[in-house]
């Protein structure tokens, strides 16, 4: 009996030995790989959610990124060197994301990482790339905090390729001023959502800076059904337009009820409106004269966008979505930085990335602000008989 115990433990030892042999073997193998002469290629990593809950985001983004790299290689690569893409999957799980990024950074020795798609996975990958001094571009992580340290200083190696939520507030305020030519605007926002509150604040600030005025500011809560009290108050203040940042579930009911009480002013919103359900609930007639901001529209007449859509369609046999476009943009931004920097040194590359200015990407011009957030074009979509139509592109 006692003998057995010891054997049990010695077997633990044995199992660990087997592991030792395996890992040692693999570690050695990886070293050999890394030692391969990499003179004619630049290794770039892509770590995405390729399986798991949000695999559709990850796959879409990767397809766009892949396209940017393939185009670059076809056009002769970067300063005569081809780009080799190494991908790894993080199972849509933040801890696994740390693992996946560690692999491509330490084993494949990538010079830069693109991905992951979601903010949580980016946050988990951040210490790894910062420790290894390898820049990371998150194509579609919108949480404002991921490029910033707790004290508000910018994280040297983290970049993103999408606009952050508050940016849309600025876009719509500019749209109200320049296109709709309205000054007196009412705001109806969701007080239970950070997204909605943030947008409402930024919108108000930009509007007042442009000489506009908020005539009424009312709040609702997510899952509310009746908005007539708030809407009647707003109507009494005689606004020229109404701004409703929020998600389609409440927004569709707000639009419907606003038209029912005879509030027929233009209504504006954010990308939370973007859903087929919007027209289903609100009705197509009520949605006329409604506009919302978005990052991407397939109807955009811009030649750059149309070229991107066509190339993507030929390659992938399906329509690109906003994630594919952001992945593509991230690819272009990275390639541009590699070309300009002329080196693969992570620190220099990060400096070059931060200096990206007026680069042509699929969504317009692309410039980084001091917080590594892109200042790029946003799209305003107008609802016409229940269908989304491209209204205009706003460059700030």
């Amino acid at each position, binding site marked *: 009996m006692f003998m057995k115990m010891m054997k049990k433990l010695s077997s633990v030892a044995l199992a660990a030995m087997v592991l030792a042999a395996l890992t040692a073997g693999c570690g050695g193998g990886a070293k050999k790989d890394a030692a391969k002469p990499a003179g004619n290629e630049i290794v770039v990593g892509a770590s995405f959610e390729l399986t798991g809950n949000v695999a559709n985001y990850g796959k879409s983004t990767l397809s766009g990124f892949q396209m940017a790299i393939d185009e670059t290689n076809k056009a002769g690569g970067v300063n005569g060197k081809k780009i080799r893409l190494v991908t790894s999957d993080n199972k849509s799980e933040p801890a*696994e994301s740390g693992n996946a990024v560690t692999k491509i950074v330490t084993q494949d020795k990538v010079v830069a990482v693109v991905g992951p798609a979601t903010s949580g996975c980016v946050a988990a990958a951040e210490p790894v790339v910062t420790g290894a001094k390898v820049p990371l571009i998150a194509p579609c992580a919108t949480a404002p905090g991921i490029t910033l340290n707790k004290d508000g200083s910018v994280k040297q190696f983290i970049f993103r390729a999408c606009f952050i939520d508050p940016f849309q507030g600025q876009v719509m305020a500019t749209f109200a001023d320049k296109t709709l030519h309205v000054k007196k605007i009412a705001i109806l926002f969701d007080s239970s959502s950070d997204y909605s509150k943030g947008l409402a604040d930024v919108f108000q600030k930009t509007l007042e800076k442009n000489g506009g005025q908020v005539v009424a500011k009312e709040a609702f809560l997510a899952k509310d059904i009746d908005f007539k009290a708030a809407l009647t108050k707003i109507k009494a203040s005689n606004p020229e337009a109404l701004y409703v940042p929020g998600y389609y579930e409440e927004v569709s009911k707000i639009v419907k009820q606003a038209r029912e009480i005879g509030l027929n002013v233009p209504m504006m919103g954010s990308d939370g409106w973007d859903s087929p359900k919007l027209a289903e609930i609100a009705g197509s007639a009520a949605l006329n004269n409604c506009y919302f901001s978005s990052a991407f529209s397939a109807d955009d007449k811009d030649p750059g966008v149309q070229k991107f859509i066509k190339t993507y369609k030929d390659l992938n046999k399906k329509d690109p979505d906003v994630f594919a476009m952001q992945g593509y943009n991230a690819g272009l931004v990275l390639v541009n930085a590699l070309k300009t920097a002329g080196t693969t040194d992570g620190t220099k590359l990060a400096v070059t990335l931060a200096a990206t200015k007026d680069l042509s990407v699929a969504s317009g011009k692309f410039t980084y602000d001091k917080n590594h957030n892109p200042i790029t074009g946003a799209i305003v979509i107008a609802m016409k008989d229940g269908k989304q139509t491209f209204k205009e592109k706003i460059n700030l």
Partner: protein
Amino acid sequence: MNKQRKNDLLALGACVLIYAIFEVLIQLEIIGPFWELNMVLICINIILASSLNMINGYTGQFSIGHAGFLAVGAYVGAIFTVKLGLPFPVAIIAGTIAAGFLGFLIGLPTLRLNGDYLAIATLGLGEIIRICILNIDYVGGASGFMGIPRLTSFTNIFWIMIVILFFIKNFKNSAHGRACLAIRENEIAADTMGIDTTKYKVMAFTLGAAFAGTAGVMFSHYFYIAHPASFTFMRSFDILTMVVLGGLGSMTGSITGAIVLTFISAYLAEFPEWRMIVYSLTMIVLMLRRPQGLFGSAELSAQMFKGLTKRIGGVKIGK
């Protein structure tokens, strides 16, 4: 010096040796950061699998809510180091106690259930813990608890794992452990023999939960983040799979299961499209060929190897 103590010392010696080998390999950078990370992950998974094995294997209660206790440990530990600024050892102890206490509270009512019902109750429980965390803004809610320092190292996780394995081994061979085994074999008979079945079931459940909590603290302090997406029921199934693959009721089985599955998962990271296929095929083949798991309820031991060598080589290895 009695025989048990001698054997334990021998085993300890073996552990020191293994640790020394790995540490040297890490220092010489033969094992790079990626495999070092996976070795830490293997240690964490070994703790999880062998603690679940206490509940599912030794006591015969079918729990599939282990990720919930892992989450409690991960978050409580992170609160202690990040929010309260206390030292790491305190956080480890706090995470362990918190998860164990929760296991105790939950174990009392749910362990009256058995079989499928207990499985469903524990499954729901794991999800409840996760959903609660998801809605607590203090710990970051849906965006996760960020900014956790990396305090776990291969050294501390390895020795914590050894201590826990040693505890579990001794537990199994104690009077309490034998009571648990009796409950697994036949609950009514055990009851008749005067074993307080509820007490022992709750005891095994509490201990299992507590160790999962320890693993949780180590987990969040290695990956810099505690995120609700890491503690879904899929995670519970992963742990259960390790236990079943190795053989329910076998500690060495759980260890092997944890090593094999973590290794497969790490190795296949670059072939995401193949990962789940290989993973599933491994399970299917194993369940067809060896439904009792790799080791059944037996322990992998030096005796087994002696027997094997005898059979193969015909060489008698004397004492």
